[in-house]
């Protein structure tokens, strides 16, 4: 095995980094899969095998984490924050936020003030957890972002 598997993991990691970098832009799974030089279906499957969740879910957690940061640190409106972090509709944002965090963006903002840790530490420390055993299944087919293509492969 070895170098081949590592090279492949490295390409998947590069694609994941691309999502971390460009989370605020409208991303589609084809573009991200192209970073890893694989087909969409293969990408979704391998990404989940390597990182434990679908690319779609990873991107959602990334966007929710950034929105949590903006809710804590700024007084921007929830609608502005929703679009700032890459969600296409307020409904999807609120539903996804609640599904992952367990409370609404408004109540999260009310309960949390600014943090003092460096931004890079916050980025990973505050990333919403993946609940045990529920990795990608929590995404229903109606949960759409521009990454909706990932849903089909996410079904158990």
């Amino acid at each position, binding site marked *: *095995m*070895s*170098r081949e*598997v*590592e*090279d492949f*993991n*490295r390409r*998947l*990691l*590069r694609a*994941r*980094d691309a999502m*971390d*970098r460009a989370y605020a832009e409208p991303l589609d799974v084809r573009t991200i899969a192209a970073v890893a030089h694989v087909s969409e279906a293969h990408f979704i499957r391998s990404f989940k095998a*390597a*990182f434990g969740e679908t690319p779609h879910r990873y991107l959602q957690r990334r966007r929710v984490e950034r929105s949590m940061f903006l809710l804590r640190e700024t007084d921007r409106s929830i609608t502005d924050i929703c679009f700032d972090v890459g969600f296409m509709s307020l409904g999807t944002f609120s539903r996804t936020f609640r599904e992952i965090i367990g409370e609404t963006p408004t109540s999260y903002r009310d309960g949390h003030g600014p943090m003092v840790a*460096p*931004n*890079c530490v916050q980025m990973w420390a505050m990333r919403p957890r993946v609940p045990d055993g529920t990795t990608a299944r929590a995404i229903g087919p109606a949960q759409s972002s521009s990454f909706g293509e990932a849903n089909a492969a996410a079904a158990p």
Partner: protein
Amino acid sequence: MLTRLNVTSIYVLDKDEALDFYVNKLGLEKGSDFKQGDYRWLTVRVPGQPDVEIGLEQPGPPLHDEATAEQIRELISKGALSGLVFHTDDARALYETLQERGVSDFTQEPIDHFYGTDMGLRDPFGNAIRILERKTAAATATA
């Protein structure tokens, strides 16, 4: 009591490739490089900071059996192991320099924060590197 941190290590997939990246791309300098039997003790360090060395370790014998080494290699390539944080006096200039040297695996372009400007990249194997230009006390006071 302890006085200084002297050596820390990161795992890499190939020592020669790592040496090329950390010295010729990132701009560190070679520290120690000697062999004892099959083992090569290889370190790099920040120019001007001779007493802190970063060991470049390759998973495998004599430290690891092959199955263990394979697991570590997989974790490296998934970016799941620890990384390094450096300081710079000019993050944006360094970002340009790194690009000129062919570095493309940036995880974050330089961004300004209240504590300074930082950026992120990965080494060829997947290890995370963060680089921070700290805001000076004078700059903070006028901000």
